[in-house]
């Protein structure tokens, strides 16, 4: 194992040495040396000899620079390891001319390496005229002389006849407008100058925020165009096998200019709304008791910018109290543009009996088509209010005639629940919010007890078990030592006594010893039983065989009608002593 580890470590050290020893350097390459304002180039800075050093690219004021990722490579050539990291950048020219790119530096192992810059020629434009271009951006507005607050529909289109990917669009800049999306992005086919294009269209509703000359800065779109190989050595199988090259192209849309104007001579009550509007007022119940509440809903609908529209004015009255709710704004995209609906809700609590008039509500707006101010108004609403003790809402409180059998109830029309507004849920007010989160000062003791107690219990139980095992082991050891001593003493004693009784005495001593060692009654065990009991102790088979033969010989001498030979009797005690000593060493 150690040998393998040593070999692996050596390999790693050799690899590291080889990597470190590889020559360091910094190289700049570009995929194109000539380009146009609409086509980006890819600059690659390759750092050799280091995986961690990052090159620092010199400022390129004539290009927009975007990182294009990093890739690293480790290579073994002729037994030498080389490592390099390539940092790629997409450079989009800002103006035509001749420039140098790729001047960069990197620090590797205390040394500074600089790259050789590359000369790039940027032409002013594409050779193909715009109407025949394969990629094209157009932008239009529905009205170039709008009033401040009037809706202008801005349409951005990207037309293409080539396969593209990884498109990234930078939105036009609408600094002087309030902007609302006008539906989602649309994809369709269309003819442009007799050519069929795939068109991506985005529409937005713009509301000028100030008068004067307003500009919509051009949008740009960067994408990768899939073409044949850049080196011109194209192959009919390029596209099939995915070997075609990809060119990064940057397209710019036109700059649009609008002249916005203020509505002429605005009267003081002018609401600031420019467009076509309508106002609708409804109440939930028209028959009420004093103290009852009903909801008044004012819906202002129109094509102007309603985001900051104030609510229509309401004639002051003491007949009811008004509680405002948060207004909501909905928007609907249509062919003519954006239609917004601003809904104001108020809870009215009526305080006097009789006829209570709500409204009319009015707003002054400017209609850009008619070029005049218009008053938008809702009709007056009359509430019938009775004193609180009187029966109200007649039909609900009228007792059903007794003769009329209760028929099946009419199915009521179910209404979809409309979410009128979203807001945060309320604060938590229970006092447990300010209670200490964890246990107080006693926490350490308590947590110590909680975590230490079970561990203590486990350790106590494990200790108890170990002690029991040890004490059992000690008793067994004592018993075995005593058995050995007694067996050796007994054998020496019988050896010095009458030789005729030797087989019986020796057999008894050996069997008693075995019984004590195995913790069983050994005196009456046969030679086979002794063999079976000792098998579990994994004693060597020759020893077991010798023991079995010894006991069998003792038994045969004991029960044989012929008297044993003297030399056989003389060997019994030494053999028994040798067996007991060997068994003791094995059984312990």
């Amino acid at each position, binding site marked *: 194992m150690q040998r393998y580890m040593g070999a692996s470590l050596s390999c790693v050290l050799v690899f590291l040495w080889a990597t470190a020893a590889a020559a360091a350097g910094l190289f700049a390459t570009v995929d194109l040396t000539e380009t146009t304002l609409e086509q980006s180039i890819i600059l690659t800075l390759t750092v050799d000899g280091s995986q961690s050093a990052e090159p620092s690219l010199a400022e390129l004021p004539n290009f927009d620079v975007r990182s294009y990722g990093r890739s690293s490579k480790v290579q073994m050539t002729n037994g030498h390891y080389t490592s390099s990291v390539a940092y790629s950048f997409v450079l989009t020219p800002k103006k035509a001319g001749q420039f140098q790119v790729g001047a960069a530096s990197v620090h590797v192992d205390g040394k500074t390496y600089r790259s050789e810059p590359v000369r790039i020629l940027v032409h002013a434009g594409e050779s193909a005229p715009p109407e025949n271009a394969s990629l094209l951006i157009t932008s239009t507005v529905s009205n170039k002389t709008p009033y401040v607050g009037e809706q202008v529909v801005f349409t951005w289109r990207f037309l293409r006849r080539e396969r593209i990917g990884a498109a990234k669009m930078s939105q036009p800049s609408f600094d002087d407008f309030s902007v609302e999306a006008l539906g989602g992005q649309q994809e369709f086919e269309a003819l442009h100058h007799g050519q069929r294009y795939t068109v991506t269209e985005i529409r937005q509703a713009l509301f000028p925020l100030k008068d004067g000359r307003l500009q919509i800065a051009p949008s740009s779109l960067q994408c990768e165009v899939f073409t044949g190989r850049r080196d011109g050595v194209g192959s009919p199988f390029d596209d099939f096998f995915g070997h075609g090259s990809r060119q990064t192209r940057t397209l710019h849309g036109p700059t649009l200019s609008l002249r916005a104007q203020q509505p002429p001579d605005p009267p003081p009550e002018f609401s600031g709304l420019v467009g076509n509007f309508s106002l609708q007022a409804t109440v939930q119940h028209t028959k009420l008791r004093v103290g009852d509440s009903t909801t008044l809903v004012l819906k202002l609908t129109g094509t102007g910018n309603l985001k900051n529209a104030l609510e229509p004015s309401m004639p002051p009255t003491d007949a009811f109290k008004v509680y405002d709710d948060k207004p909501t704004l909905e928007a609907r995209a249509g062919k003519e543009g954006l239609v917004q609906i601003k809904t104001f809700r108020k809870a009215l609590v009526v305080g006097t009996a009789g006829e209570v008039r709500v409204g009319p509500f009015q707003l002054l707006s400017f209609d850009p088509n008619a070029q005049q101010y218009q008053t938008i108004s809702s009709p007056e609403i009359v509430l019938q209010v009775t004193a609180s003790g009187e029966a109200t809402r007649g039909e609900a409180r009228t007792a059903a005639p007794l003769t009329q059998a209760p028929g099946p109830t009419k199915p009521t029309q179910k209404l979809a629940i409309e979410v009128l507004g979203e807001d945060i849920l309320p604060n938590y007010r229970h006092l*447990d919010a300010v209670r200490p989160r964890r246990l107080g000062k006693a926490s350490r003791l308590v947590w110590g007890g909680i975590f230490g107690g079970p561990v203590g219990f486990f350790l106590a139980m494990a200790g108890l078990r170990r002690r029991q095992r040890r004490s059992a082991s000690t008793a067994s050891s004592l018993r075995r030592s005593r058995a050995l001593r007694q067996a050796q003493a007994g054998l020496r004693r019988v050896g010095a006594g009458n030789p005729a009784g030797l087989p019986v005495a020796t057999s008894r001593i050996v069997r008693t010893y075995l019984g004590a060692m195995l913790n069983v009654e050994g005196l009456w065990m046969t030679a086979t039983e002794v063999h079976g009991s000792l098998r579990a102790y994994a004693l060597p088979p020759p020893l077991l065989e010798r023991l079995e033969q010894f006991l069998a010989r003792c038994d045969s001498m004991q029960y044989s009608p012929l008297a044993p030979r003297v030399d056989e009797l003389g060997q019994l005690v030494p053999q028994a002593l040798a067996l007991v000593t060997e068994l003791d060493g094995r059984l312990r």
Partner: protein
Amino acid sequence: VRLFVGLCLSLAGAAQQAPAPSPTEVFAQANQAFDQKRYPEAIADYARLAQQGDPTGWIHYNLGNAYLRGGQLGKAVASYLRSEALLPRHRDLQHNLAYARQQTRDALGPIEPSPLNKILFFWHYLFSTDELLYMLAAVHGLFFLALGLWAYLPASGHRRAAASTLGLMWLGLGGSWLIHTTMPPRLMVVLADEVDVHSGTTDDSMVRFRLHEGTVGRLVDQDGSWLRIELADGKQGWLPLEEVEPVQL
């Protein structure tokens, strides 16, 4: 005169020793200020409670509400995130955090672990640090009780299976609690209306993208007063520390 001066001094001393309002009183004051739309006062009181000791998730939640009402979206998101670490399953908090995220300008989803991790280590994301500690304590007790009994009683298949299951739970909860306490996620919330995220740690380095108030990112590194952040979509860059609020969950 001496008596008068002594009386004045003792009264001044008594005034100085007037007890500071209890957390319950500060909480009541903050709630009242919130109800009366005095949001700066509510923010000050809730923030005071949040800085005392070990505040509950509710204090951060109420503080987030007060910041949101007070027009400080970034601070509100930061407070809600702190509250979420302590109350990971509370619906009111989830609603308000989602509402605050809706108010942000950047179209970025929340920073979330991978779905596989959320399934495999569900308890890590489902429970707060405190809840994990309580569960760990319970499993710890059962586990060592089982080990103790197992050491003393003869081993059986059922006991072994129970002890193994408890052991796995102990490891899972313990590991999760350790990660929660020693390696909590470090986030940041943009406080400025708009902040440029650079490619390096100098003002003249290239601006990679712009972020707006309330956007949340993961803190990857710090270099002096510049923080390296990573967004939910993987974009990375450096921005100045003073434009964001770091949130240690």
